[in-house]
């Protein structure tokens, strides 16, 4: 009785948190922003993979290999490396559209606002924007600029600070004029912010945000303790049948993507990769082994030891989707939700695997994620190979992770299966009597 009260209490705490996180206007816009950028991110990732095919550097002469890479690099340089720009447009578009305005103006005003705050000098030469500023380094500023620009723009549109056109003027003309004053006011404010910051020791806003916000937050988010907390939160939400991944992602994606792109920059420059925890560390090595909680190993476990009809049925239903990391059938079907029996392996396995993969990468046994974004529906082993920049060790570490998950789950699956089996036997006996 105490048990169910405790469950009720947790549910009552977690549901409002989930609702707030998922429906927060800024977090929704952020999620949509990344969604807008996703096709471009994947396009760029595909070309990073092709440009770094294994053994190619040994098959081709050094000159030919360099030429090959240089020919393909613009594909990722124009998309994946500067994904911040597309995220900004997406955020501005969605925020303004959501408020009932013309989304496209929200997108462009956000982009322009960000560019105003961006350094426009490359190695003392004016008239250029450093690609690093619109890449990983600029992601936080970009997101904040988009929030701010969209809000200011909306403010002026809602106050009706627009130029009115007489009746009979074509709609497109009216719209372009109606956006003029709000855009001008918004960008003017951004310009003032830029000028104010030029008198501070930070010189540029980008520098300020990077030093004060981005660097400390990414350092924190890139550490193992924060990652374990994130993983535990995801698992806890899911235990109550709430989509933990989407909730935690909406807060941590900016950090994980920034860490990811830092690695990409280093990978393409042939330098040592700075980060272990990245977007791909989470998506490929934590989630990407059958879905949140790495349930592909659980499904395999069911096939290996399941005797009860219920277990076998769950395994059959869950397996095809599980290969592509969709695991709602097993989460709700086994069930994992609200099932005290599996709480221990459910919380423990992903944490142990996170530590295991982290240590393997820190020790240099497995290459760190290369910054390639592998879609989360990519089956395990393939995803590990791709995420580490075409390294077989990436697949092997996933295989070991699956073994770990299986071993942690094994005794609990056994108990569960036995319980189901006994119940079914009794039911069958009762049915036979009738």
């Amino acid at each position: 009785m105490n048990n169910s009260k405790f469950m009720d209490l947790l549910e009552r705490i977690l549901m409002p948190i989930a609702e707030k996180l998922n429906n927060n206007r800024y977090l929704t816009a952020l999620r949509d922003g990344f969604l807008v950028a996703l096709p471009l991110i994947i396009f760029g990732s595909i070309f990073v993979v092709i440009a770094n095919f294994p053994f190619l550097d040994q098959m081709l002469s050094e000159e030919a290999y360099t030429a090959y890479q240089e020919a393909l690099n613009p594909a990722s340089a124009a998309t994946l490396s500067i994904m911040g720009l597309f995220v900004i447009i997406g955020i501005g578009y969605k925020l303004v559209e959501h408020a009932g305005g013309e989304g496209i103006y929200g997108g462009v005003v956000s982009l322009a606002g960000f560019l105003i705050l961006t350094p426009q000098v490359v190695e003392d030469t004016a008239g250029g924007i450093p690609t690093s500023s619109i890449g990983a380094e600029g992601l936080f500023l970009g997101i904040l600029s988009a929030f701010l620009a969209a809000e200011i723009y909306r403010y002026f549109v809602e106050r009706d600070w627009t130029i009115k056109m007489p009746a009979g003027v074509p709609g497109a003309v009216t719209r372009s004029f109606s956006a003029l004053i709000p855009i001008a006011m918004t960008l003017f404010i951004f310009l003032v912010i830029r000028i104010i910051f030029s008198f501070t020791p930070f010189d540029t806003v980008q520098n300020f945000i990077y030093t004060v916000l981005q660097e400390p937050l990414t350092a924190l988010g890139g550490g193992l303790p924060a990652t374990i907390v994130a993983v535990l939160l995801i698992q806890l939400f899911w235990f109550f049948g709430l989509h933990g991944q989407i909730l935690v992602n909406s807060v941590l994606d900016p950090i994980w993507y920034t860490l990811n792109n830092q690695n990409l920059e280093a990978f393409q420059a042939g330098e040592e990769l700075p980060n272990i925890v990245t977007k791909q560390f989470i998506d490929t090595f934590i989630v990407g082994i059958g879905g949140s909680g790495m349930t592909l190993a659980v499904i395999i476990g069911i096939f290996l030891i399941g005797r009860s009809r219920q277990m076998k049925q769950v395994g059959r239903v869950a397996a095809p989707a599980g290969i592509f990391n969709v695991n709602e059938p097993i989460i709700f079907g086994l069930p994992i939700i609200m099932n005290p029996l599996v709480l221990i392996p459910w919380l423990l396995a992903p944490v142990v695997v996170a530590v295991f993969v982290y240590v393997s990468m820190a020790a240099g046994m497995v290459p760190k994620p290369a910054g390639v974004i592998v879609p989360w529906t990519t089956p395990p082993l393939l995803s590990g190979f791709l995420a580490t920049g075409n390294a077989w060790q990436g697949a092997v570490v996933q295989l070991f992770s699956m073994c770990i998950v299986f071993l942690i789950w094994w005794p609990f699956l056994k108990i569960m299966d036995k319980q189901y089996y006994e119940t079914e036997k009794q039911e069958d006996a009762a049915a036979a009597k009738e």
Partner: protein
Amino acid sequence: MKNILLACSAGMSTSLLVSKMEEAARAKGVETKIWAVAQDKAESEMENADVLLIGPQMRFMKNKYSKVAKEAGIPLDVIDPVAYGRVDGEAVLNKALELMEKK
């Protein structure tokens, strides 16, 4: 023709249900159009639907969707977790039909 809209985070896990529900509808002889969408598409798709069912893992969307569903004049509910786990098309279809009837 009954239009049944399913929504979850990315429209992936609800899409597992779509074919099972279609099967169940054929067996019942009910003419349906069933489709699954990601959470951000659900609101704009509601105008084409007669009922909205939400994946249980996204049940925190119910309040938000309720407002739009009210405007669109369609009923909505969260899919039963057990039926969801079993990918039980028939149970979910019955639920959808029941919701539409009640209205």
